[in-house]
Protein backbone atom coordinates (compact mmCIF):
# COMPACT_ATOMS: atom_id res chain seq x y z
CA UNK A 1 0.00 0.00 0.00
CA UNK A 2 2.63 2.52 1.08
CA UNK A 3 6.40 2.48 0.70
CA UNK A 4 8.18 5.25 2.51
CA UNK A 5 11.91 5.83 2.23
CA UNK A 6 13.66 8.46 4.32
CA UNK A 7 17.33 8.98 3.59
CA UNK A 8 17.70 11.93 5.87
CA UNK A 9 15.40 13.97 8.05
CA UNK A 10 16.64 16.87 10.12
CA UNK A 11 14.69 18.54 12.88
CA UNK A 12 15.56 21.66 14.77
CA UNK A 13 15.71 21.39 18.53
CA UNK A 14 14.33 24.16 20.76
CA UNK A 15 17.93 25.23 21.46
CA UNK A 16 18.40 25.81 17.73
CA UNK A 17 20.59 22.80 17.06
CA UNK A 18 19.82 20.52 14.16
CA UNK A 19 19.29 16.83 14.84
CA UNK A 20 19.05 13.94 12.38
CA UNK A 21 16.27 11.42 12.95
CA UNK A 22 14.76 8.50 11.02
CA UNK A 23 17.95 8.15 9.00
CA UNK A 24 17.85 5.37 6.41
CA UNK A 25 14.28 4.42 7.24
CA UNK A 26 12.34 2.22 4.84
CA UNK A 27 8.79 1.47 5.77
CA UNK A 28 6.64 -0.88 3.73
CA UNK A 29 2.99 -0.91 4.73
CA UNK A 30 1.29 -3.80 2.99
CA UNK A 31 -2.37 -4.06 2.12
CA UNK A 32 -2.70 -7.05 4.45
CA UNK A 33 -1.37 -5.05 7.44
CA UNK A 34 -4.19 -4.47 9.88
CA UNK A 35 -2.24 -2.20 12.21
CA UNK A 36 1.26 -1.05 13.02
CA UNK A 37 2.39 0.50 16.28
CA UNK A 38 5.28 2.93 16.07
CA UNK A 39 7.07 2.78 19.40
CA UNK A 40 10.08 4.51 20.84
CA UNK A 41 10.96 6.89 23.59
CA UNK A 42 10.06 10.57 23.52
CA UNK A 43 12.00 12.47 20.88
CA UNK A 44 12.72 9.38 18.80
CA UNK A 45 10.55 10.74 15.98
CA UNK A 46 7.26 8.83 16.35
CA UNK A 47 5.04 11.83 15.80
CA UNK A 48 7.34 13.13 13.06
CA UNK A 49 7.07 9.79 11.26
CA UNK A 50 3.31 9.89 11.60
CA UNK A 51 3.27 13.43 10.17
CA UNK A 52 5.45 12.29 7.29
CA UNK A 53 3.07 9.42 6.61
CA UNK A 54 0.20 11.91 6.67
CA UNK A 55 2.04 14.22 4.29
CA UNK A 56 1.99 17.00 6.85
CA UNK A 57 5.77 17.04 6.92
CA UNK A 58 7.34 17.01 3.47
CA UNK A 59 10.77 18.35 4.35
CA UNK A 60 12.94 15.27 4.13
CA UNK A 61 15.12 13.53 1.63
CA UNK A 62 13.32 10.42 0.43
CA UNK A 63 10.33 9.10 -1.45
CA UNK A 64 6.66 8.42 -0.78
CA UNK A 65 4.93 5.76 -2.86
CA UNK A 66 1.25 5.08 -2.36
CA UNK A 67 -0.54 2.32 -4.26
CA UNK A 68 2.44 2.12 -6.61
CA UNK A 69 2.33 5.86 -7.39
CA UNK A 70 5.14 8.07 -6.20
CA UNK A 71 3.64 11.21 -4.72
CA UNK A 72 5.34 14.53 -5.15
CA UNK A 73 6.58 15.85 -1.81
CA UNK A 74 4.81 19.17 -2.07
CA UNK A 75 2.44 20.39 0.61
CA UNK A 76 -0.60 20.79 -1.65
CA UNK A 77 -0.07 17.49 -3.48
CA UNK A 78 0.23 15.73 -0.16
CA UNK A 79 -2.89 17.51 1.10
CA UNK A 80 -4.90 16.14 -1.83
CA UNK A 81 -3.54 12.64 -1.13
CA UNK A 82 -4.38 13.01 2.55
CA UNK A 83 -7.92 14.16 1.84
CA UNK A 84 -8.54 11.16 -0.37
CA UNK A 85 -6.77 8.32 1.41
CA UNK A 86 -5.76 9.11 4.96
CA UNK A 87 -7.71 9.62 8.15
CA UNK A 88 -5.98 11.30 11.07
CA UNK A 89 -6.67 11.28 14.79
CA UNK A 90 -4.37 13.77 16.42
CA UNK A 91 -3.19 13.71 20.00
CA UNK A 92 -5.23 16.82 20.84
CA UNK A 93 -8.18 15.63 18.72
CA UNK A 94 -8.36 19.07 17.03
CA UNK A 95 -12.12 19.57 17.21
CA UNK A 96 -14.15 22.76 17.04
CA UNK A 97 -15.48 22.97 20.58
CA UNK A 98 -18.20 25.49 19.84
CA UNK A 99 -19.69 23.36 17.05
CA UNK A 100 -21.82 20.26 17.30
CA UNK A 101 -20.56 16.73 16.84
CA UNK A 102 -22.04 16.26 13.37
CA UNK A 103 -20.45 19.47 12.11
CA UNK A 104 -17.06 18.29 13.34
CA UNK A 105 -17.44 14.88 11.73
CA UNK A 106 -18.43 16.45 8.42
CA UNK A 107 -15.20 18.47 8.44
CA UNK A 108 -13.44 15.20 7.62
CA UNK A 109 -15.35 14.72 4.38
CA UNK A 110 -13.98 15.95 1.05
CA UNK A 111 -17.39 17.50 0.30
CA UNK A 112 -19.32 17.88 3.57
CA UNK A 113 -22.77 18.34 1.99
CA UNK A 114 -22.71 14.99 0.25
CA UNK A 115 -21.38 13.02 3.21
CA UNK A 116 -24.19 13.45 5.75
CA UNK A 117 -25.23 9.80 5.61
CA UNK A 118 -21.61 8.64 5.97
CA UNK A 119 -21.13 11.02 8.90
CA UNK A 120 -24.18 9.59 10.65
CA UNK A 121 -22.90 6.06 9.98
CA UNK A 122 -19.44 6.95 11.34
CA UNK A 123 -21.02 8.36 14.48
CA UNK A 124 -23.06 5.18 14.90
CA UNK A 125 -19.89 3.16 14.47
CA UNK A 126 -18.14 5.00 17.31
CA UNK A 127 -21.27 4.79 19.46
CA UNK A 128 -22.19 8.47 19.35
CA UNK A 129 -25.14 8.39 16.98
CA UNK A 130 -27.36 10.13 19.51
CA UNK A 131 -24.78 12.90 20.13
CA UNK A 132 -24.94 14.41 16.65
CA UNK A 133 -26.37 17.75 17.80
CA UNK A 134 -24.39 17.99 21.03
CA UNK A 135 -21.66 20.60 21.36
CA UNK A 136 -18.14 19.16 21.50
CA UNK A 137 -17.42 21.28 24.57
CA UNK A 138 -20.02 19.21 26.43
CA UNK A 139 -18.28 15.88 25.74
CA UNK A 140 -15.86 13.93 27.90
CA UNK A 141 -12.30 13.24 26.74
CA UNK A 142 -13.14 9.74 25.55
CA UNK A 143 -16.23 10.95 23.67
CA UNK A 144 -14.25 13.74 22.05
CA UNK A 145 -11.71 11.22 20.88
CA UNK A 146 -14.43 9.05 19.36
CA UNK A 147 -15.71 12.13 17.50
CA UNK A 148 -12.18 12.60 16.13
CA UNK A 149 -12.16 8.94 15.07
CA UNK A 150 -15.57 9.32 13.41
CA UNK A 151 -14.26 12.36 11.57
CA UNK A 152 -11.31 10.33 10.31
CA UNK A 153 -13.58 7.47 9.24
CA UNK A 154 -16.23 9.50 7.41
CA UNK A 155 -14.42 9.20 4.07
CA UNK A 156 -13.52 5.52 4.61
CA UNK A 157 -9.76 5.99 4.34
CA UNK A 158 -7.32 3.25 3.38
CA UNK A 159 -4.98 4.38 6.13
CA UNK A 160 -5.83 5.71 9.58
CA UNK A 161 -3.11 7.44 11.57
CA UNK A 162 -3.57 7.84 15.30
CA UNK A 163 -1.13 9.77 17.47
CA UNK A 164 -1.11 8.53 21.07
CA UNK A 165 -4.76 7.46 20.76
CA UNK A 166 -5.05 6.31 24.36
CA UNK A 167 -2.57 8.67 25.97
CA UNK A 168 -5.16 10.67 27.90
CA UNK A 169 -7.68 7.94 28.61
CA UNK A 170 -8.33 5.79 31.63
CA UNK A 171 -7.96 2.04 31.32
CA UNK A 172 -11.64 1.29 30.77
CA UNK A 173 -12.01 3.92 28.07
CA UNK A 174 -8.75 2.77 26.52
CA UNK A 175 -10.22 -0.73 26.15
CA UNK A 176 -13.30 0.62 24.40
CA UNK A 177 -11.19 2.73 22.06
CA UNK A 178 -8.91 -0.18 21.21
CA UNK A 179 -11.95 -2.31 20.51
CA UNK A 180 -13.22 0.40 18.21
CA UNK A 181 -9.90 0.49 16.35
CA UNK A 182 -10.01 -3.28 15.95
CA UNK A 183 -13.46 -2.98 14.38
CA UNK A 184 -12.06 -0.38 12.00
CA UNK A 185 -9.15 -2.68 11.12
CA UNK A 186 -11.62 -5.47 10.48
CA UNK A 187 -13.34 -3.28 7.89
CA UNK A 188 -10.11 -3.11 5.88
CA UNK A 189 -8.57 0.13 7.08
CA UNK A 190 -4.92 -0.11 8.12
CA UNK A 191 -4.34 1.73 11.38
CA UNK A 192 -0.95 3.12 12.34
CA UNK A 193 -0.42 4.22 15.91
CA UNK A 194 2.31 6.34 17.40
CA UNK A 195 2.24 5.15 20.97
CA UNK A 196 3.92 4.54 24.28
CA UNK A 197 1.20 2.21 25.43
CA UNK A 198 2.08 -1.47 25.81
CA UNK A 199 -1.60 -2.36 25.43
CA UNK A 200 -1.81 -0.60 22.10
CA UNK A 201 1.39 -2.36 21.00
CA UNK A 202 -0.02 -5.70 22.00
CA UNK A 203 -3.17 -5.00 20.03
CA UNK A 204 -1.20 -4.11 16.91
CA UNK A 205 -0.31 -6.42 14.02
CA UNK A 206 3.31 -5.22 13.94
CA UNK A 207 5.48 -2.99 16.08
CA UNK A 208 8.08 -0.64 14.71
CA UNK A 209 10.76 0.46 17.15
CA UNK A 210 12.55 3.77 16.70
CA UNK A 211 15.75 4.81 18.40
CA UNK A 212 17.02 8.33 18.78
CA UNK A 213 18.42 8.46 15.29
CA UNK A 214 16.94 5.71 13.21
CA UNK A 215 14.53 2.89 12.75
CA UNK A 216 15.70 -0.30 14.42
CA UNK A 217 13.34 -3.15 13.96
CA UNK A 218 9.91 -4.30 12.94
CA UNK A 219 8.45 -7.19 14.83
CA UNK A 220 5.25 -8.92 15.69
CA UNK A 221 3.90 -8.06 19.17
Amino acid at each position, binding site marked *: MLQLTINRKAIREPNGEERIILEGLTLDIRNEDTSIAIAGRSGSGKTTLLRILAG*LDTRYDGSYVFENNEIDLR*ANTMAAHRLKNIGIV*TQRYDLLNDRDVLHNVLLGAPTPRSYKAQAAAALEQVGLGHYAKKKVSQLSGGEAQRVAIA*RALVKKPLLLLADEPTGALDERTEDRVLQLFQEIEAQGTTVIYATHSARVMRASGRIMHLTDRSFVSMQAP
Partner: protein
Amino acid sequence: MKSLQLNQATFDFYHLAVASGALPDWDAIDYQTGIIPVVLGHSYSGIYEVGDTISANFYFQPFRLQVVGVLEPNSSMYYKGDMNTFLDDYILLPYPPSLDPTTKDNLFFQGILSFAMIGGDIAAPHTLPSRDVLNVLAEIGSRTGFNEYILLNLPDYLVQFELMRNMIAENGALILALSVLVFTIAVLLLLAIGTAILRRRIQRFRILWIIGHSEQTIGKNHRNAQLIELAIPLICLIPATALFPHWNLSSLVGAVLTVMIGSLIYSAWCGTVLHRTLHRATD
Protein backbone atom coordinates in the same frame (compact mmCIF):
# COMPACT_ATOMS: atom_id res chain seq x y z
CA MET B 1 -16.09 118.64 -10.31
CA LYS B 2 -15.77 114.89 -10.14
CA SER B 3 -13.34 113.79 -7.53
CA LEU B 4 -11.63 110.58 -6.51
CA GLN B 5 -9.80 109.86 -3.29
CA LEU B 6 -6.79 107.63 -3.81
CA ASN B 7 -3.92 106.36 -1.75
CA GLN B 8 -0.30 106.10 -2.83
CA ALA B 9 -0.65 102.40 -3.66
CA THR B 10 -3.31 103.21 -6.27
CA PHE B 11 -1.17 105.89 -7.88
CA ASP B 12 1.75 103.52 -8.04
CA PHE B 13 -0.29 100.56 -9.23
CA TYR B 14 -1.82 102.44 -12.19
CA HIS B 15 1.43 104.25 -12.90
CA LEU B 16 -0.31 107.60 -12.74
CA ALA B 17 2.10 110.28 -13.78
CA VAL B 18 1.90 114.04 -14.10
CA ALA B 19 2.35 116.12 -17.27
CA SER B 20 3.23 119.12 -15.15
CA GLY B 21 3.95 119.74 -11.49
CA ALA B 22 4.59 116.78 -9.26
CA LEU B 23 2.85 113.96 -7.46
CA PRO B 24 1.88 114.68 -3.87
CA ASP B 25 4.47 114.36 -1.17
CA TRP B 26 2.62 111.48 0.49
CA ASP B 27 4.33 111.68 3.84
CA ALA B 28 3.58 115.39 4.14
CA ILE B 29 -0.18 115.12 3.66
CA ASP B 30 -1.89 116.45 6.74
CA TYR B 31 -5.63 117.18 6.63
CA GLN B 32 -5.42 119.01 9.95
CA THR B 33 -3.69 121.90 8.21
CA GLY B 34 -6.85 122.48 6.17
CA ILE B 35 -4.84 122.21 2.99
CA ILE B 36 -4.96 119.14 0.74
CA PRO B 37 -2.54 118.81 -2.18
CA VAL B 38 -4.47 117.68 -5.26
CA VAL B 39 -3.66 116.39 -8.74
CA LEU B 40 -5.98 117.48 -11.56
CA GLY B 41 -7.04 115.58 -14.62
CA HIS B 42 -5.56 116.79 -17.90
CA SER B 43 -8.81 118.56 -18.96
CA TYR B 44 -8.12 121.13 -16.26
CA SER B 45 -4.80 122.01 -17.81
CA GLY B 46 -4.94 125.72 -18.70
CA ILE B 47 -7.81 126.29 -16.29
CA TYR B 48 -5.80 125.77 -13.16
CA GLU B 49 -2.08 126.05 -12.80
CA VAL B 50 0.23 124.22 -10.44
CA GLY B 51 0.23 126.19 -7.20
CA ASP B 52 -3.38 127.42 -7.54
CA THR B 53 -5.63 126.98 -4.54
CA ILE B 54 -9.29 125.99 -4.79
CA SER B 55 -11.78 126.33 -1.96
CA ALA B 56 -13.95 123.26 -1.56
CA ASN B 57 -16.10 121.30 0.86
CA PHE B 58 -14.79 117.83 1.40
CA TYR B 59 -17.05 115.55 3.44
CA PHE B 60 -18.94 118.63 4.59
CA GLN B 61 -15.79 120.31 5.87
CA PRO B 62 -14.15 123.33 4.19
CA PHE B 63 -10.67 122.77 2.76
CA ARG B 64 -8.27 124.51 0.50
CA LEU B 65 -7.15 122.27 -2.32
CA GLN B 66 -3.72 123.13 -3.57
CA VAL B 67 -2.90 122.00 -7.12
CA VAL B 68 0.47 120.20 -7.08
CA GLY B 69 0.30 118.53 -10.48
CA VAL B 70 -1.70 117.85 -13.64
CA LEU B 71 -2.04 114.29 -14.94
CA GLU B 72 -0.87 113.18 -18.33
CA PRO B 73 -3.67 113.17 -20.91
CA ASN B 74 -5.81 110.02 -21.11
CA SER B 75 -4.67 108.75 -17.73
CA SER B 76 -7.03 105.99 -16.67
CA MET B 77 -7.66 103.37 -14.00
CA TYR B 78 -10.18 100.73 -12.99
CA TYR B 79 -13.17 102.18 -11.20
CA LYS B 80 -16.57 100.69 -10.41
CA GLY B 81 -16.37 97.92 -12.96
CA ASP B 82 -14.93 100.02 -15.73
CA MET B 83 -11.42 98.92 -16.65
CA ASN B 84 -10.67 102.27 -18.26
CA THR B 85 -12.14 105.13 -16.34
CA PHE B 86 -10.45 108.19 -17.81
CA LEU B 87 -9.34 110.66 -15.20
CA ASP B 88 -9.10 113.74 -17.41
CA ASP B 89 -12.23 115.30 -15.79
CA TYR B 90 -11.35 114.28 -12.25
CA ILE B 91 -9.70 115.95 -9.35
CA LEU B 92 -7.63 113.44 -7.37
CA LEU B 93 -7.46 113.87 -3.61
CA PRO B 94 -4.71 111.86 -1.96
CA TYR B 95 -5.47 110.12 1.30
CA PRO B 96 -3.21 110.83 4.24
CA PRO B 97 -0.82 108.01 5.18
CA SER B 98 -2.78 107.50 8.41
CA LEU B 99 -5.88 108.77 10.16
CA ASP B 100 -5.61 111.72 12.49
CA PRO B 101 -6.63 111.35 16.13
CA THR B 102 -10.39 111.65 16.54
CA THR B 103 -11.79 114.37 18.75
CA LYS B 104 -15.31 115.51 19.53
CA ASP B 105 -14.93 118.27 16.95
CA ASN B 106 -13.83 116.15 14.02
CA LEU B 107 -15.75 112.95 14.88
CA PHE B 108 -18.17 113.26 11.94
CA PHE B 109 -15.47 114.00 9.36
CA GLN B 110 -13.06 111.37 10.69
CA GLY B 111 -15.89 108.80 10.67
CA ILE B 112 -16.66 109.39 7.03
CA LEU B 113 -12.98 109.47 6.15
CA SER B 114 -12.34 106.24 8.00
CA PHE B 115 -15.04 104.40 6.08
CA ALA B 116 -13.84 105.94 2.86
CA MET B 117 -10.28 104.80 3.48
CA ILE B 118 -11.34 101.31 4.48
CA GLY B 119 -13.61 100.89 1.47
CA GLY B 120 -12.08 100.59 -1.90
CA ASP B 121 -11.13 98.29 -4.72
CA ILE B 122 -8.56 95.58 -4.44
CA ALA B 123 -6.62 95.59 -7.64
CA ALA B 124 -4.41 92.89 -9.06
CA PRO B 125 -2.67 92.44 -12.41
CA HIS B 126 -4.98 90.71 -14.86
CA THR B 127 -2.25 88.15 -15.52
CA LEU B 128 -2.39 86.98 -11.91
CA PRO B 129 -4.44 83.75 -11.53
CA SER B 130 -7.43 84.11 -9.22
CA ARG B 131 -5.93 81.49 -6.89
CA ASP B 132 -2.87 83.67 -6.40
CA VAL B 133 -5.10 86.67 -5.78
CA LEU B 134 -6.76 84.68 -3.02
CA ASN B 135 -3.35 83.84 -1.63
CA VAL B 136 -2.43 87.52 -1.55
CA LEU B 137 -5.72 88.28 0.19
CA ALA B 138 -5.11 85.51 2.70
CA GLU B 139 -1.65 86.85 3.35
CA ILE B 140 -3.00 90.39 3.85
CA GLY B 141 -5.74 88.96 6.05
CA SER B 142 -3.31 87.13 8.30
CA ARG B 143 -1.02 90.19 8.46
CA THR B 144 -3.78 92.68 9.30
CA GLY B 145 -6.13 90.46 11.30
CA PHE B 146 -8.92 90.64 8.70
CA ASN B 147 -9.28 86.89 8.55
CA GLU B 148 -12.96 86.73 7.79
CA TYR B 149 -14.15 88.28 4.59
CA ILE B 150 -16.47 87.59 1.72
CA LEU B 151 -15.48 87.91 -1.89
CA LEU B 152 -18.34 88.78 -4.13
CA ASN B 153 -18.58 87.46 -7.68
CA LEU B 154 -16.20 84.59 -7.00
CA PRO B 155 -17.27 80.93 -7.01
CA ASP B 156 -17.91 79.71 -3.47
CA TYR B 157 -15.90 76.53 -3.90
CA LEU B 158 -12.82 78.53 -4.86
CA VAL B 159 -13.01 80.63 -1.71
CA GLN B 160 -13.80 77.61 0.48
CA PHE B 161 -10.97 75.64 -1.07
CA GLU B 162 -8.59 78.48 -0.46
CA LEU B 163 -9.74 78.98 3.12
CA MET B 164 -9.31 75.26 3.74
CA ARG B 165 -5.88 75.34 2.14
CA ASN B 166 -4.87 78.23 4.35
CA MET B 167 -6.24 76.52 7.41
CA ILE B 168 -4.24 73.39 6.57
CA ALA B 169 -1.15 75.48 5.94
CA GLU B 170 -1.52 77.29 9.26
CA ASN B 171 -2.32 74.13 11.26
CA GLY B 172 -0.23 71.71 9.27
CA ALA B 173 1.57 70.17 12.22
CA LEU B 174 -1.61 69.70 14.22
CA ILE B 175 -3.50 68.20 11.29
CA LEU B 176 -0.59 65.88 10.52
CA ALA B 177 -0.35 64.77 14.14
CA LEU B 178 -4.12 64.16 14.33
CA SER B 179 -4.08 62.28 11.02
CA VAL B 180 -1.23 60.05 12.17
CA LEU B 181 -3.00 59.45 15.48
CA VAL B 182 -6.35 58.60 13.88
CA PHE B 183 -4.66 56.41 11.28
CA THR B 184 -2.63 54.57 13.92
CA ILE B 185 -5.68 54.00 16.11
CA ALA B 186 -7.69 52.81 13.10
CA VAL B 187 -4.96 50.40 12.00
CA LEU B 188 -4.47 49.04 15.54
CA LEU B 189 -8.23 48.64 15.94
CA LEU B 190 -8.52 46.88 12.61
CA LEU B 191 -5.61 44.57 13.42
CA ALA B 192 -7.01 43.80 16.87
CA ILE B 193 -10.43 42.94 15.45
CA GLY B 194 -8.83 41.06 12.56
CA THR B 195 -6.62 39.08 14.94
CA ALA B 196 -9.58 38.16 17.13
CA ILE B 197 -11.63 37.00 14.15
CA LEU B 198 -8.72 35.20 12.58
CA ARG B 199 -7.71 33.50 15.82
CA ARG B 200 -11.20 32.11 16.12
CA ARG B 201 -11.26 31.01 12.51
CA ILE B 202 -7.69 29.79 12.24
CA GLN B 203 -8.37 26.69 14.32
CA ARG B 204 -10.98 25.65 11.76
CA PHE B 205 -8.56 26.25 8.89
CA ARG B 206 -5.81 24.34 10.68
CA ILE B 207 -8.14 21.37 11.09
CA LEU B 208 -9.22 21.56 7.45
CA TRP B 209 -5.55 21.60 6.44
CA ILE B 210 -4.68 18.61 8.63
CA ILE B 211 -7.60 16.71 7.16
CA GLY B 212 -6.31 17.45 3.67
CA HIS B 213 -8.23 20.37 2.22
CA SER B 214 -6.02 22.40 -0.11
CA GLU B 215 -4.72 25.84 0.73
CA GLN B 216 -6.77 27.15 -2.19
CA THR B 217 -10.00 25.68 -0.78
CA ILE B 218 -9.25 27.04 2.66
CA GLY B 219 -8.35 30.42 1.18
CA LYS B 220 -11.64 30.46 -0.73
CA ASN B 221 -13.48 29.58 2.46
CA HIS B 222 -11.70 32.44 4.20
CA ARG B 223 -12.39 34.92 1.41
CA ASN B 224 -16.10 34.08 1.39
CA ALA B 225 -16.29 34.70 5.12
CA GLN B 226 -14.36 37.96 4.70
CA LEU B 227 -16.62 39.06 1.88
CA ILE B 228 -19.58 38.98 4.25
CA GLU B 229 -17.64 40.79 6.98
CA LEU B 230 -16.52 43.53 4.63
CA ALA B 231 -19.82 43.84 2.78
CA ILE B 232 -21.65 44.69 6.00
CA PRO B 233 -19.69 47.90 6.78
CA LEU B 234 -19.83 48.82 3.11
CA ILE B 235 -23.61 48.43 2.98
CA CYS B 236 -23.92 50.44 6.21
CA LEU B 237 -21.53 53.11 4.99
CA ILE B 238 -23.28 53.91 1.71
CA PRO B 239 -26.52 55.21 3.30
CA ALA B 240 -24.44 56.76 6.11
CA THR B 241 -22.68 58.98 3.58
CA ALA B 242 -26.03 60.72 3.07
CA LEU B 243 -25.51 62.16 6.56
CA PHE B 244 -22.24 63.78 5.52
CA PRO B 245 -22.40 67.57 5.27
CA HIS B 246 -22.36 68.66 1.63
CA TRP B 247 -23.12 65.13 0.40
CA ASN B 248 -22.18 64.49 -3.17
CA LEU B 249 -21.04 61.67 -5.40
CA SER B 250 -17.40 62.37 -4.55
CA SER B 251 -17.99 61.76 -0.84
CA LEU B 252 -19.71 58.46 -1.65
CA VAL B 253 -16.93 57.36 -3.98
CA GLY B 254 -14.36 58.43 -1.40
CA ALA B 255 -16.05 56.47 1.37
CA VAL B 256 -16.40 53.34 -0.77
CA LEU B 257 -12.80 53.61 -1.94
CA THR B 258 -11.59 54.00 1.65
CA VAL B 259 -13.43 50.86 2.74
CA MET B 260 -12.21 48.96 -0.32
CA ILE B 261 -8.56 49.94 0.20
CA GLY B 262 -8.87 49.07 3.89
CA SER B 263 -10.45 45.76 2.94
CA LEU B 264 -7.66 44.92 0.53
CA ILE B 265 -5.01 45.64 3.16
CA TYR B 266 -6.94 43.63 5.74
CA SER B 267 -7.47 40.78 3.27
CA ALA B 268 -3.78 40.67 2.32
CA TRP B 269 -2.77 40.66 5.96
CA CYS B 270 -5.24 37.85 6.77
CA GLY B 271 -3.97 35.88 3.76
CA THR B 272 -0.39 36.16 5.02
CA VAL B 273 -1.34 35.04 8.53
CA LEU B 274 -3.36 32.17 7.10
CA HIS B 275 -0.53 30.98 4.86
CA ARG B 276 1.95 31.17 7.74
CA THR B 277 -0.38 29.31 10.10
CA LEU B 278 -1.07 26.50 7.66
CA HIS B 279 2.58 25.97 6.96
CA ARG B 280 3.36 26.06 10.66
CA ALA B 281 0.81 23.26 11.03
CA THR B 282 2.77 21.38 8.38
CA ASP B 283 6.14 21.85 10.07
